[in-house]
Structure formats: C-alpha cells, structure tokens
C-alpha cells in the first residue's frame, strides 16, 4: 500500500516536472533559429568535444551578435550527446533536435560511426543538413546522402597520401606506425601505409593503441624494437597518441615523430615533458592566416581555439549560417542548396571573425568564398578538398612549413 502511494507520488511528480520542462522548452522555441550541435559529450572522446562545441558556438554567437543574419535573427545552439559510440543514443538525440526542436541544421556528429547512423536514419530522411567537423572515415565519401551531408574535415584517405609524401620528401624511407584503434585511426593508417609503400617506403611495424587505457609501455617497446628511427603516430593529442610519444621520449627510442591531424595541438607540446622540436605533422587547411585569426578570435572570447577539430567546428557552423543568408531564409532546404556555393569560389574570401562581413555581402546580393580557419574548399561530394599544411614543431610551436 505504502509502495503504491510512493509510486503514485513519484509518477505525479515526474509528469508535473515533464510538463513544466516541456512547456518551458516550448516557450523558448520559435523565437530564434535553432542549430543543433551533436557531439560525443560522454564516451571515448568526451575530452575533445567541449572544445569543439565551444568553437561552433563561437561562430553562432558571432553571427547573432552581428545582427546581420536575415535581418537580425538570433541563433540558439542546442547541444546533444552523440556518445561517439552508441548509434542508438545518437539517433535518439538527433531525432529530438530535428523533429522536436526543429533545428535548421546540425553541426556534427563527430565519430564516423554515429555520424553515419545519424545521417542515414535521421538527417537525410528529414532533409536536414549535417556538417561534420571530424568524421573523417573514407567510407563517408560514398554514403547515399542526397546532398545533405557535408564535412569540413577531409577524408583520411587523402591525408594518408599527404603524410606519406611529406615523409618521403624528407628522405624518410622506413617508419613504425601506431594508430588509435577506431575507424579514424585504422582508416588513416591503412591509407598511410598503402601510400607510403607505394612510394617505395617500408613500414617496419603497424600497431594499434587503445584510447582510455593509460599505459603504453608495451606498445612503445614493440615499436622501438622495429629498429625504425621514425614513428608515425595517428591518434589524439590528449589521449593515447600523446601517451605513446611521451613514453617514446622517456625511453629515448625514436629520433623523429610524424603525426596526423588529431595530434596537432599546442596542448600536445605543452602536455609533454621533453623536447618535441622537429616533430612533423599534417593538418587540413592551407592558410596559416585563417587559423591564426581563429585562435585570436577564440582567445578574445576567453576560449581556447587550439585543439583537434575546433577550427573545423567553427567552420562547419559558419558555413550553415552563410548558406541561410545566401538563400534568404532559415529553411532546411536553403541550407542544403546554398552550402556549396558559399564554401567555394567565386566570391569574396571570408575568414574567422569576418562572418558579419560575409553576411552583409550576401545580403547585398554578392557572393562569398568562405575560407575560415581551415581554408574550406568542398569537393563535389561535399567534403573538404584536402589541402594540407605541413607543420613542424619549432620553438615549442607548430609552424607551417609548406602547403600541399
């Protein structure tokens, strides 16, 4: 009897709370343009995502504050958790954003697996644009997206070729490779090894490392035993990749490191005790100016713009809003139809912090070519074309050596 009363009270409380919650949410609706930010706030890359979401929200805030979007519209970003790994939870979150919060577009998702799930099961069927800042799996190039899926991060297949070329050009012919054991790392490593071997190089050993396990002594031992002088690390700057480099430095086992985009971050240099000078890496984008502007912009807002996929996140958000402006309304179709046009030439080049300028040009009937923080250029399937910066660590900073 007592139990049933408890149950009843609990139920009433829950319902009352739900109604209050939902009506309160409802009131917030319809005033602003809603944009979804779906990233893995919990799960294996939970440490990367807050910075990415912040960066996207920088762009939204910049546009809102400019008052130039569609005659002064404001943007409300809505975050949702993709969990990075649980396709079901990600789909549910996206479902809520798209069908209930009526977002005009989605910045996300992050990990290639959930991104595919959200695109196939929710975004494409509902005709909502998704711009992923970090899903780099080559498989996404060919998904049947009906023109609704874009990404500001290029496919790993391309980066693998570029990194291989960088190493070959520097006269490195034998490397050991370690990659983070997920679709990003594995796909990247496959592409790199194939390209490097095709160019006449040899890969002495390829091993994976797991994220979130902490101890990498065994991996480094195996890598060091290969006898190679160069270690290629395809992982994350705040995770296993950093652990591998740290352990290698401690054991003094490699002369030279080369890294992929997930590792490029000041946090890598700051977080490692030891000298990284001479470390080389590749990062999507071609113009140091855009990246620098983004860092400054972020710093002026009290955020840190330096980190994996943060610049890509800003660009992904900015592109969708420019597309709205180009089409003159915040409809979902408009975003889809105009996104390519604002991303590519012809038009005035727009960089981070200049979104207001871009919006104004579009409002006046002009054209823009959004460059952003990563020198955005979309291929005809809607992904970053993949010009890459070749970076090298000098004086405890990543410096651009050349553009490829």
């Amino acid at each position, binding site marked *: 009897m007592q139990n049933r009363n408890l149950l009843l009270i609990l139920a009433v409380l829950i319902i009352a709370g739900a109604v209050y919650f939902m009506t309160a949410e409802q009131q917030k609706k319809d005033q602003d343009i809603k944009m979804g930010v779906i990233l893995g706030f919990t799960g294996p890359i939970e440490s990367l995502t*807050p910075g990415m979401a912040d960066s996207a929200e920088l762009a939204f805030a910049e546009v809102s504050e400019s008052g130039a979007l569609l005659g002064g519209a404001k943007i409300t970003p809505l975050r949702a958790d993709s969990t990075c790994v649980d396709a079901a939870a990600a789909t549910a979150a996206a479902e809520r954003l798209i069908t209930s919060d009526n977002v005009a577009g989605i910045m996300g998702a992050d990990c290639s697996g959930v991104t595919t799930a959200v695109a196939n099961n929710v975004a494409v069927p509902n005709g909502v644009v998704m711009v992923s800042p970090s899903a780099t799996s080559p498989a996404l190039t060919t998904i049947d997206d009906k023109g609704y899926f874009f990404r500001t991060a290029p496919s790993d297949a391309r980066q693998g070729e570029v990194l291989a070329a960088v190493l070959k050009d520097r006269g490195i012919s034998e490397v050991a490779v370690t990659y983070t054991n997920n679709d990003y790392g594995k796909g990247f490593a496959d592409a790199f090894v194939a390209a490097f071997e095709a160019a006449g190089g040899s890969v002495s050993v390829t091993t994976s490392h797991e994220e979130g396990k902490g101890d990498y*002594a065994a991996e480094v*031992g195996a890598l060091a*035993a290969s006898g190679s002088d160069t270690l290629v690390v395809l992982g994350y700057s705040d*995770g296993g990749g950093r652990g591998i480099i740290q352990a290698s430095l401690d054991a003094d086992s490699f002369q030279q490191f080369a890294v992929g985009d997930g590792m490029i971050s000041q946090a890598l240099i700051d977080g490692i005790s030891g000298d990284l000078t001479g470390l080389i890496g590749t990062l999507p984008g071609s113009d140091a100016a855009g990246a620098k502007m983004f860092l400054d912009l972020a710093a002026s807002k009290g955020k840190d713009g330096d980190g994996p996929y943060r610049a890509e996140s800003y660009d992904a958000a900015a592109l969708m809003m420019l597309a709205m402006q180009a089409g003159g309304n915040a409809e979902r179709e408009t975003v889809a139809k105009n996104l390519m046009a604002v991303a590519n030439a012809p038009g005035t080049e727009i960089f981070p912090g200049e979104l207001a300028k871009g919006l104004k040009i579009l409002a006046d009937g002009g054209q823009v070519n959004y460059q952003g923080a990563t020198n955005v250029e979309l291929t005809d399937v809607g992904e970053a074309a993949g010009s890459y910066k070749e970076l090298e660590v000098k004086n405890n900073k990543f410096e651009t050596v050349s553009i490829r």
Partner: protein
Amino acid sequence: MGGFENSLNALVLLANFVLVPALAYGSQLALGAVGVTLIFGILRFANFAHGDTMAFGTMVTIFCTWALQSAGISAGPLPTALLALPVGILATIALVLLTDRFVFRFYRKRRSPPVIYIVASVGVMFMLNGLVRLLIGPDDRKFTDGERFVISAREFKQSTGLAEGLSIQTTQALTIGVAILAVALLFWFLQKTRTGKSMRAFSDNEDLALLCGIDPDRVVRVAWILAAVLAVLAGVLYGLDKSFKPFIYFNLLLPFFAAAILGGIGQPVGAIVGGYIVAFTEVTATYAYKQLAVYLLPSGWVPDGLLQFLSTDYKFAISFIILVLVLLIRPTGIFRGRVL
C-alpha cells in the same frame, strides 16, 4: 668485449622496456588489487566501484594539488601531489564510509546474498562515474611536476657509453617506493596490530570471529578505510605516472580483478603478486624481442619478424585472458584464497 657489451645492451634494453615499466605498472595494479581483495575478504563481494573510488580520490588530490601549486607551494624535486595526498585520502575515506553507511550496511544487516552487493556496487559505480565527471570533467588532467627523471635515457647513454639507454622517471621510482612502503605498512598492520589480527580472523571465518567477540562493524570500517587509502595511493601514482582521466580509471577495474583472483581472492600477498604477474605478462607477452635478438644472436641468425608472442592489439585482452585461465585452472588462485 663486443660480446660483453652486447649482453649489457640487451640487459639495459630489457630493463628499460620491460622491467621498469612493468614494475611501476605492477605496483599500481598491486595497490588497487589489494583494495579489491580486502573488501572481498571482509565484506565478501567484488566491488565494481573500486575504479571509480580511485578516480574520486585522485580527483580530490588533483584539486588540492592545483591549489597548492597556485599558492606556490611545492615539494621540491618530488611532485606536489604528494603533499595533497592526505586530503585526497581523507575525502575518499569519508566517501567510502558514507557509501557503506547508506548503501552496503543495509544489505549486511539483512545478510543479503553477495550478488545483491555487486548490484549495489554497480549503482555506486554509476553514481561516482557521474559525480567525478560532474566535478572535474571528463578531460585528461596532468598534475605532475617536480623533477621528471631519476635517470634519463640520454644521460645513461652518455655516462655508460652503451647503445641502449635506461630511463627511470621520478614517478616510476616513487610508485615503486610508495607501493613497497604501503604494502609493508599494511602487512605490519595485519600481522602485528590487534585490529589487523581481528581482520584476518574475520576474513578467515566470520562466525568464529564473531564468537570471539570481534566487533564486525569496526572490522568493516577499517577494511573500507584501508581500501580507500590504497585506492587513492594507486590512483594518484597512476595519474602521476601516466595521466588522470576518469574513463581510464574505470577501465582499470578488470586488471584489478584479474590480479586479485590470480593471487587468490582475500589474500593480500596474492593480490600483490597477482598485480605484478598481470603487469609483467602484459608487457612481456607483447614486447617485441627483435632488438634483443640483434644483441644476443650472431648477425645472420636474427629473424625478420618482430618476435612478438602476441600483437599489442590484444594487450588489453591479456589481463582478461589471465583471469579466465585462472578461473578455469585454479579458481582459488595461487595463494588459495577463499572460493566455493
């Protein structure tokens, strides 16, 4: 001479890549596994929340370390975190005693079957999991400072003239040292003090111990306190040596269980031995012995392959494989813990 130098190189190589890392990792596992085993011995259940308890203690220590660092206080060449450790330990003791009071005591009084405790510990695990992330966030946190190396590989090479270097980090040395100290203290406590003896009696035979007038609440309390101290030590040392990330600490749970079961659950000595065995197996089974072969074999004999028993892909499966093998072959573990 060349032969002698080669053997020396081989030795240093092994020490650098196998011995030192495995000792440090093994010490961390041992500390955690002793905590698991103590709880199992006294409260008779596998505590699934142990990893997250560790994360909680480490988190408090990190907060305190940051405060000390910003106040300009340091421990010289040693990490500041050592100064912050007591705070972390106290907070964790408070936490485990509270969870015991509000969660586990209830089931103890009702003499619930062990599985109910496990389910409850899963609940505690979920809550701590959320709590830690709520407070410190999910990010990777570094809080190491002070001298990094006792011996760095480069220095070693220069001073010995060998081709291979040996590096020992401060944190590794510290880990091994603290682990030895903590374990020695624990054994002194269990063997020599009255409370320790009553705990062992309680672990051996609960009913008999109760007949002899041992206060069960006191024994349980002390067990929790010890487990908390060991968990925070393990957590902080692990964090100093590698880095702190809540997710990693949850993942340490299975190696702990593996070590505890391998050694014979309820047996502190066993847990320590188990910890080192798990660590050494993980490192030796996946280490590539090619370089060693280069030093030790005539040049024509060195094979092309890496000479690895198992790819590092399966490194994390090793502790689970050990676990399953032990359960199959000798469920009582090496030191014949309580079972069945």
